[in-house]
């Protein structure tokens, strides 16, 4: 099972650079998720790996082979498409066996593989049906099955769940997570849904405007986003951003906002030294804010609650702090004591700080 190496991959449409120099290293048996908003170049990247789109420049290595000039069929890949891309005139069994029949596998081998994969995906009873006679979820499984019987070195998924309704999507996401434990292959998965990315990935690659913003394990991206874009993209509800200026109070450095003052996390003191007197962006996750004054000396923000959205176990509070909107996620069990302005405390180490010019995190 090969690892994938991409060097200076570029894609131009006319004068527009959709991908401007991409370098990636994907390890063996890794489940990699390319995530980003629509138009960020993630699908184009996947299609270039598949060979459906020609790279304008750069190299794609799968294992020991440079494949960027090869036909898709010579790249040892299988792919699941967003709209499933089943062959409408073939029944499920023939859809799944198409690649094997083209490769002239013996019939017994084809049958055995189809049975094994169909059992795994619980579509054994659908083998003689045409795609038109299947539900969305069933088509999705067949599309997955068609890729799995191939036993290719690399599996590519292009937003495979985005055509499903919310309930089915959650269910299929869980099944995908189970499947990937059983199929130890290199998988690359494209999605715009950060929850899919967080739940499925060994490694997430966040893309924006044709560039990699950050890559790493889901928890690393959540805990230490490298820049404002990643901080705002990973996590739901998204991180709150507050404009501040690095000043001092009673001889101690503090972050001064319009109507609020935030402490400087002790670990960032040194990194913040060059920013004295300059503007910064402070970020805090909705779940990091807790109702009340908290323990002695804990920093707090006074938030004016405008709206409480009850979701179930959690509630989302839409609040204002000075001119800024601040989202808070609270446990629904904690009854809110009163309306209007309320104090919310937080751990100073949960603050993220960003340079507003470079948008990079200050660590």
């Amino acid at each position, binding site marked *: 099972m090969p690892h994938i190496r991409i060097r200076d991959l570029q894609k131009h449409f006319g004068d527009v650079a959709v991908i401007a120099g991409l370098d990636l290293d994907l390890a063996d048996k890794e489940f990699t998720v390319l995530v980003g908003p629509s138009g960020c170049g993630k699908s184009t990247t996947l299609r270039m790996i*598949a*060979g*459906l789109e020609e790279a304008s420049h750069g190299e794609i290595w799968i294992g020991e082979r440079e494949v960027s000039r090869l*036909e*898709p*069929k010579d790249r040892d*890949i*299988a*792919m699941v*498409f*967003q*709209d*499933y*891309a*089943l*062959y*409408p*005139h073939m*029944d499920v069994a023939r859809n799944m066996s*198409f*690649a094997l029949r*083209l*490769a002239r596998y013996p019939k017994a081998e084809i049958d055995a593989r189809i049975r094994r994969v169909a059992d795994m995906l619980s579509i054994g009873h659908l083998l*003689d049906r*045409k795609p038109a006679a299947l539900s969305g979820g069933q088509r999705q499984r067949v599309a997955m099955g*068609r890729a799995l019987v*191939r036993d290719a070195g690399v599996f590519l998924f292009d937003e495979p769940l985005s055509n499903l309704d919310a309930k089915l999507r959650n269910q299929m996401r869980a099944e995908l997570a189970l499947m990937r434990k059983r199929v130890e292959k290199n998988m690359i998965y494209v999605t715009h849904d950060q929850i899919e990315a967080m739940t499925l990935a060994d490694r997430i690659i966040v893309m924006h405007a044709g560039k990699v913003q950050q890559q790493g394990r889901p928890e690393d991206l959540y805990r230490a986003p490298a820049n404002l874009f990643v901080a705002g993209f990973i996590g739901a509800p998204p991180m709150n951003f507050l404009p501040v200026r690095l000043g001092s109070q009673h001889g101690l450095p503090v972050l001064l906002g319009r109507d609020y003052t935030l402490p400087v996390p002790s670990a960032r003191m040194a990194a913040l030294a060059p920013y004295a007197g300059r503007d910064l962006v402070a970020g805090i996750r909705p779940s990091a804010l807790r109702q009340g004054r908290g323990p002695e000396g804990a920093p707090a923000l006074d938030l004016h609650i405008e709206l409480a959205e009850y979701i179930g176990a959690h509630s989302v509070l839409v609040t204002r702090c000075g001119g800024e909107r601040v989202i808070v996620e609270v446990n629904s069990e904690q009854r809110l004591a009163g309306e209007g302005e309320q104090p919310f405390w937080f751990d100073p180490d949960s603050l993220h700080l960003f340079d507003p010019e470079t948008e990079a995190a200050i660590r």
Partner: protein
Amino acid sequence: MPSRHGLNRASPYLFLAPAAAVALVGLVYPMLRSVWLSFHEWSIGTPPESARFVGLENYRWLLADDAFWVSVGVTMTFALAVVVLEVVLGVALALVLDRDLRGTSLFRTVFILPMMIAPIVVGLIWRFLYNEQFGPLSQLLKALGLPGVPWLSSPDMALVSVIIADVWQWTPFIFILALAALQGLPASAIEAARIDGATRWQTTLYIKLPLIAPVIAVAALLRLIDAFKVLEVIYILTEGGPGLSTEILSLHIYKTAFVSQQLGRASALSNLLLLIVLVLTVLLVLARSLRASRAGKE
């Protein structure tokens, strides 16, 4: 409420009535009249009352007439040849031009032009092209030092020439329908085939052609029905000759009616042609629905 119920029941027929009336006058009446006429002997110019009832005599005479059977053979050969050639060429052209290359839209337009030309004009164009002294084809052969071809004067060649002219005019019909069907195919299914290891040729054979087959079948059926009724181009090119070599049924009907002035026999001929086309159409539609239901069960 019975009155409302009654109105509901009658209203569909009410809305259909105008169309039905037009069909009655324009379609059913002439057909019935033609059936009636086929049992009579009547010449143009004589009063209709002078028509003499002859029973099945017209049909008996026709079925015993060699010229009729020659004409049936010519028609069958012509219709089959043009439909097969037009489908093969039309689909092939559509496959070639189903891509986004510079200039393809120009080619697409050029290729459908012949279909827009009136059949009479097509006949005149090809009569000029086939002219054995001054026609461009003969000039070209002469320039290449090749012997001339008796395009329209040899009985064997005349049918081929007539078929070529029809293929030239009607291949575009199959072409545009096949092209539209190809462009309506889901792009991702074709990409999936590429990933599954299909070559361009295999993708065409196993994915594209089966998916556009229903459209092609309907287009071919329309062409087949039309081919049985072709008249103008052949009339202009050969008038059915030399001998009876290109005398297709509609031309045979025309000659029987307006040259021999035997309207009864011409009507009987028309009815037989209608019957042939009807039987063929029903058979084809049956074959298709049979295949479709079998495919549904698979």
